[in-house]
């Protein structure tokens, strides 16, 4: 089968070099184990970093994880690099715990549409520019303003 440009093999060094290029938008780069790397950034840079990771590197989008860390929220964008077997995770911090919001990546990455709707249901984070911000997992009669994965909700 003919290989297209998009899946041209990339080695670990090239991947690291490509990640280094966006260093000024990140606050930290941390390699936690042999094939796992975490990039840290603030929420205002998340859209451009995500666009770079998905379109320029390019990496395969896996999923987003939303976490309530009591004082702030974290959104983790997990990407897979299938040439090297690495998982690149972009960790974004939303400092405003009262009215959390972040720019949506669904307009250029439709695969993220569902997971952003799910995070909105679970944690109440607003995704700006999302094409379809309806409920995904909560039922229609679930009360407004109660977000089941927030830490203040008793388990």
């Amino acid at each position: 089968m003919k290989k297209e440009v998009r899946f041209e093999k990339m080695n670990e060094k090239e991947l690291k070099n490509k990640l280094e290029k966006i260093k000024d938008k990140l606050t930290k780069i941390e390699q936690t184990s042999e094939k796992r790397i975490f990039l840290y950034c603030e929420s205002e840079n998340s859209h451009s970093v995500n666009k770079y990771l998905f379109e320029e590197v390019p990496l395969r989008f896996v999923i987003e994880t939303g976490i309530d860390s009591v004082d702030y929220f974290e959104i983790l964008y997990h990407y897979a690099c299938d040439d090297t077997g690495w998982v690149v995770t972009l960790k974004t911090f939303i400092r405003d715990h009262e009215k959390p919001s972040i720019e949506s990546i669904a307009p250029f990455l439709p695969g993220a549409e569902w997971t952003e709707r799910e995070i909105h249901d679970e944690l109440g984070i607003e995704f700006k520019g999302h094409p379809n911000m309806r409920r995904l997992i909560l039922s229609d009669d679930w009360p407004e303003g109660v977000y089941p994965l927030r830490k203040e909700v008793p388990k």
Partner: protein
Amino acid sequence: MKKTVNLHKPVLAVGPFHPLQEEMEYFKLTVDGEIVTDIDVRISYNHRGMEGISETLQFDQVPYLVSRICGICSASHPLAYVQAVEEICGIKPPERALYVRTIINEMERLHSHILWAGLAGHFIGYDTVFMWAWKYREPILDLLEEITGNRNNYGNVRVGGCREDIQEELKPKILDEMDKLEKKIEMLTKAVLDDPILHMRLKGVGILSKEDGIRYAITGPTARGSGIDIDVRRDDPYAAYGELDWKVITAPEGDVFAKVVVRLLEVLESIKMIRQAVKKLPKGPITTEVKEIPPGEGCGRAEAPRGETFHYIRSDGGNRPVRHKMRAPSYVNVPSFKASCIGQHIADVTITLAAVDPCYSCTERLAVVDGHHNIVHDYDALLKMSRDKTARLKKELGLRELKMKDFEIE
């Protein structure tokens, strides 16, 4: 069953739910005559809040929770989870445990793919395929029961190794069953690849292009059938996959037929892998002692029959995960219908939906509303349309419909 309704837009409703399989979905298809023009999906009719429950369980209890995410993928979810936790601890399970994990996971893929082949046959009116395939699947479930004690929900992995070992006396039986299965699957594969009706019925139907596939982040046989060459088993080798000789099957066409071919050939690859793993099975213990889980975060992934399973774990040093994110492959594969169903005929929708291997049972509640005549068709009517199309193609090819009297012996 026919009744009249008043609707402004012609809408085809698939769903909402049928609590038999792992996912319930409701597809609202807007149709213009026979052609689908738009699709809207609703899920979570049976949301179980597992990410929340996981935060209340101890690390060694979670594998039994996540194996219940899906009855069919009940080996790959716990495997992805324990790999994430093992990454946090920095431990490597014993060699033998890695091989046992590989064998269980490949058996899971065998029975899942064969089940799918049977159902796909059923949807287009090939009930013989359905009955054969399900019969072939049965010995694998029996083997899994002999190894783990359960036909499904094996609960066989734990952090640091496995719970049940593969007994030495079982090895010849596994090899024997693999030989038998290989012959049957080869016969089935040839029958499918040679059948002119199946070619006409499935080729060019429900095409998902490579570009759309990447944008929707699809994985597994759905991706490989669209020419996206990915497989976690090869790209990020876990368990014993790095030590076995096998190849990743891809097909560039992206239609339903390509997905059938990929799955059937993958079954043959899995048989090869199980055979090698059983022969190479190293001696030794199957588990290591894990005392405590340090603070940290880990990502575990495994190639489930339907695609990549991904688990993210964060630990604060306590005995429970503070966050556990689970992603099943259908979660990204299902939204790709938006790209593959639009422009299709209604008669092809059942098989296009089935080609992704989501929840089949949804289609049992299929109903069609035709905007021009305001007639509601139920599931049986749609199934009949799908089968009639197959019969029509047969007639056009000059093939005769077999009757019972053809089988009578004089």
